[in-house]
């Protein structure tokens, strides 16, 4: 089966063509804020101006008649962005006369990595701008075992970075500055059972700007926030007896986070997987491939049910493509 997928939940507009075995083509158009963080309306305007271009590139890479389905990111994400890709996907499906399928962005991150590795049933840490969740599959759903009680880790990093005068995206800049320090300043460490909270760290980091060096703050920020994530992952592994941990989402590109997770896993005798940056970041291939899995199992989304779902939770999706 060949499926065209459209990703557009936040910053990256991406169209991709996949078959059962490989990514055939991908075209991207990233929205880069001129100042401040991601502005949903500006991102949506960027998507609206470029969506025809990226789809055109994909269509000219193949015979459009070979496309058997259109997948699109239905959520979670910014409403204005989701509406642009949703509209484009509906038009394309109607024009080509093929089924449409709305994909959960978070599940797509997991499925593309299961596709590219030999992981059958991993524990997943999904960390991006808006999302921070620990998930694993059980009885036809990806269950959320733990998650942020307030903001996503990426959003927290970006907010702090902006207040420190660092340009978007702030995460990689904080990572680089953190490497220059080993002086730990205590910051609010909040783990409640399997859930965690980051807003206290953002406030503490801004407060510390008055007296400490930016390097020390970046270091302490990362150490505190990442330790919370690793602790919850370890507890999740211990409670479920799963032996593989998979990292997903853009913040997963952080080398210190990868290192901490790797140490925790090796001490428990678990395997740790950090995928390539192209799959950690938002990409059209993950939407196309997850759409392919859904279509292959008889799932499609009628036009009337294809509206944007900005708060789409992964456990709303019945997972029919995993047996058992």
């Amino acid at each position, binding site marked *: 089966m060949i499926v065209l997928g459209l990703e557009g939940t936040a910053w990256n507009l991406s169209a991709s063509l996949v078959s059962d075995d490989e990514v055939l083509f991908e075209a991207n158009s990233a929205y880069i804020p001129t100042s401040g963080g991601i502005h949903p309306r500006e991102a949506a305007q960027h998507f609206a101006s470029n969506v025809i271009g990226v789809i055109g590139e994909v269509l000219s890479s193949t015979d459009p008649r070979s496309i058997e389905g259109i997948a699109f990111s239905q959520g979670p994400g910014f409403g204005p962005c989701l509406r642009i890709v949703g509209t484009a996907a509906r038009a394309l499906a109607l024009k080509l006369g093929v089924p449409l399928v709305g994909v959960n962005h978070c599940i797509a991150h997991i499925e593309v990595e299961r596709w590219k590795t030999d992981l059958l049933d991993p524990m997943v840490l999904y960390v991006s701008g808006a999302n921070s969740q620990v998930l694993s599959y*059980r*009885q036809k*759903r990806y*269950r*959320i*075992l*733990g998650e942020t009680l307030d903001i996503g880790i990426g959003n927290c990093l970006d907010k702090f970075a902006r207040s420190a005068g660092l340009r978007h995206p702030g995460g990689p800049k904080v990572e680089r500055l953190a490497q220059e320090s*080993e002086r*730990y300043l*205590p910051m609010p*460490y909040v783990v*409640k*059972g*399997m859930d965690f909270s980051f807003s206290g760290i953002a406030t503490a980091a801004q407060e510390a700007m008055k007296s400490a060096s930016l390097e020390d703050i970046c270091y302490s920020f990362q*150490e*505190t926030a990442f*330790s919370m994530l*690793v*602790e919850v992952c*370890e*507890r999740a*592994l*211990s*409670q*479920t007896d799963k032996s593989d941990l998979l990292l997903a989402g853009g913040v997963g590109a952080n080398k210190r986070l990868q*290192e*901490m*997770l790797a*140490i*925790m896993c090796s*001490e428990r005798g678990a395997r740790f997987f950090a995928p390539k940056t192209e799959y950690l970041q938002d990409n059209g291939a993950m939407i196309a491939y997850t759409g392919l899995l859904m279509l292959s199992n008889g799932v499609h989304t009628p036009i009337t049910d294809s509206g944007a779902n900005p708060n789409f939770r992964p*456990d709303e999706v019945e997972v029919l493509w995993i047996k058992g």
Partner: protein
Amino acid sequence: MDQGIIEVVTGAEAAVYIQTHSVIKKRVPKKYRTAELDIKLRKERTKLEAKIQSDARKVGVPTPIIREVNGFDITMERVEGQPVSLVINETIAEQIGEVLCTLHSAGIAHGDPTTRNMIVSNTRIYLIDFGLASYDRSLEARGVDVHVFFQSLEALHENYRALKKAFLAGYGKKCQDVEQVISKVEEIKGRGRYL
């Protein structure tokens, strides 16, 4: 540690050494986190766990007597008896209901009240392992406790329906808002996230 070690149990954050007359719970260092944070967390949590466990005892919930808190280690009385998971019946389930209601009424949530974390000793039900416990009066925290207990029943015991019923009868004796707790448990179960 002057006595022979009978058994060592390791969890996600601690190792528990069971000896003839005492139990030592040691919070082990985590190499993934920076030393300052590691030491701070282990100290604070050890102190908090010991405090909640003795507070629970003060309000009438049987828990092992804490003998010593030293850095990252808690030494406590070893309660001899049978784990509830091996001997549970409807009478015991009802007793557990009463014990958990007493704990909740004192504003304490256990955090992990599975049948493996309860011991029957001389017809009394002891709660052990307060590692995830918190001072929390919320309906949410109480619902999670009851849900976690129910999950452990469903996983291990065939007659779990009768056991749940007996538990709720015990819980409802003094906790008048048992109906609210039951609806909270239903809501939590719907989220499908606790194991």
